[in-house]
């Protein structure tokens, strides 16, 4: 079987994001995730460049690779022009491709993300779409969103959007022919394959746990059992 390191090196983000790391820890010092989670991007970059297969496999199965916020603050500061944030993205992709993502609590969150975000892209042409952004799941969106959700059409009309309308404008209905093109793009570039793979693994897990699809979604969406935090 092809080595994990070799598979990683096929990812353009790794080829762009990993030169020789000198283990200085600058990335960890600037990293917002390292302050919040038990997370150390320096260590991750070091493991990858060590080419230690067993350690890389451990990473792919762990919560650790899912802590990064992909802010790319580390990229600006690395003295060797590494991009730890891109290295993480490559690790995450490989974790999904190998199925290892199912072995960590944070990795299993892929189910929620694929379902919601890919669903929005394919159904509406937007990553975020207001009819799918509910106050019930987002109380932090405030009483103003609670109000807006009840009056979506009226508020968007007041603000000059073209909600669900024809032609250009904010929140216009994206024509079906364009949505069909997005679907074809997903089909030929691995987007659909990733969605199916994540869903299949999630449904298998749900079945093992005796949960319905909705129950499994809610579990993954809210569960926080691991020793993730710094404090």
């Amino acid at each position, binding site marked *: 079987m092809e080595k994990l390191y070799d598979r990683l090196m096929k*990812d*353009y983000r790794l*080829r*762009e994001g990993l030169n020789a790391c000198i283990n200085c820890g600058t990335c960890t010092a600037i990293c*917002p*995730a390292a302050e*919040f*989670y038990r997370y150390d991007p320096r260590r991750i970059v070091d493991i990858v460049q060590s080419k230690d297969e067993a350690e890389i496999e451990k990473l792919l199965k762990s919560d650790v690779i899912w802590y*990064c*916020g*992909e*802010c*790319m*603050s580390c*990229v*600006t500061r690395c003295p060797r022009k590494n991009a730890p944030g891109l290295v993480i*993205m490559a690790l995450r*992709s490989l974790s*999904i491709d190998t199925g290892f993502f199912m072995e960590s609590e944070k990795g299993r*969150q*892929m189910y*929620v*993300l694929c379902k919601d*975000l890919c669903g*929005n892209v394919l159904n509406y*042409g*937007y*990553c*975020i*779409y207001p009819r799918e952004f509910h106050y019930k799941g987002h109380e*932090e*969106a405030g*009483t*103003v*969103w609670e*109000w807006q959700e009840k*009056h979506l059409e009226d*508020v*968007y*009309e*007041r*603000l*000059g959007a073209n909600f669900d309308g024809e032609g*250009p404008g*904010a*929140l216009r209905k*994206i*024509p079906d022919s364009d949505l069909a093109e997005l679907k*074809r*793009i*997903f089909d*030929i*570039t*691995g*987007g659909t394959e*990733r969605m199916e793979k994540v869903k299949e693994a999630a449904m298998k897990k749900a079945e093992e746990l005796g949960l319905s699809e909705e129950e499994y979604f809610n579990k*993954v*969406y*809210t569960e926080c059992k691991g020793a993730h*935090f710094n404090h």
Partner: protein
Amino acid sequence: MIYEGKQKIWSDYQKEIPDDHYFYVRSCIRQSFFPASEAAFLHITRNILNKDIFETEHHTTCGGIAYHSDAIPQETAMTIIARQFALMKKYGYENYVCSCITSFGLYCETMETWREFPDLKEKIAENLWKSCKLEFAVPKFLVHASDMIYKYRNQIAAHAKFKLVDHKTGKPLKVVEHIGCHYSKMFPSKGVGGAEYPYVLAGMIEAWGGEVVDYPERRHCCGFGFRQYFVKSNRGYSLSNTYKKFESMEPYEPDLIITNCPGCPYFMDRWQYVIAESEGKTYGKNGHGIPVMTYEEVAGLVLGFDPWDLGLQTHQIGPEPLLDKMGIPYNPEEKYKGKNGKDLGQPRQLDCIR
């Protein structure tokens, strides 16, 4: 002295921003939460400055939020982006302006990767043809919408009805600028002022009469973190980063926060509410929060647009203290009204923050 030195570094580092003829692409988050900001951008550039800014209904998401949440592979994101660029070409444009910072960063990354790996570029062009029968193209100039408002900041100042100045005391207002991480942290040369001293928003603040606040966590991320916000159990990450920024800026008593990213104004607005409710703490005076606005909202206020046309009623933190300081008139009765005065009720009033 030191401040002047820093200003020099900021102004020395510039990028080229064409004056006119742009293909405009919207942002998913901003359409949902700040649609009036995009409308203000188009109104200012098209109607006040007479620029040619073209939009087609056929453009879509760039896929950036899904990509940075790891929900789509890089090749998928790149092909969606190639489709956006191809539409630009199809409609006869070569300057591309996007409303979203996540898009902007991803476009920069994508174009750089294509430059470095021509085989990949060819593969994406093939994907594009197979899926959409569109011809591959890359923009000659790629800019973010805030780059353009920055470029036109002095023209906007020349049309100003109000300034970022306390109209009673004549003192400049203290303004925090928050730049989206993906604007220039990956590719400093693509942003006005680079990554360490980005000048894109500071330039607007200065041109419109305000004073820029320099505080320790100025460049810290707002904490969006993509999956760190979308999944409920991760949301503490997002909140704690915003909290860190507010604790750091508090001693400087800012009157306003101005942002150029889709997510940042939402998070810095809404997390103030969560902090107030959970910790009982507010960062403005007399139980108010600090208003957080997009650069178009601020430009609109400076130009004398009605605050409710700009959508300031859809922020959780009320803009009133800022409007009062700037001497901007507004009708509280109209705040939550729909088109033609339609009664839409109003949000539940909060005790913890205004």
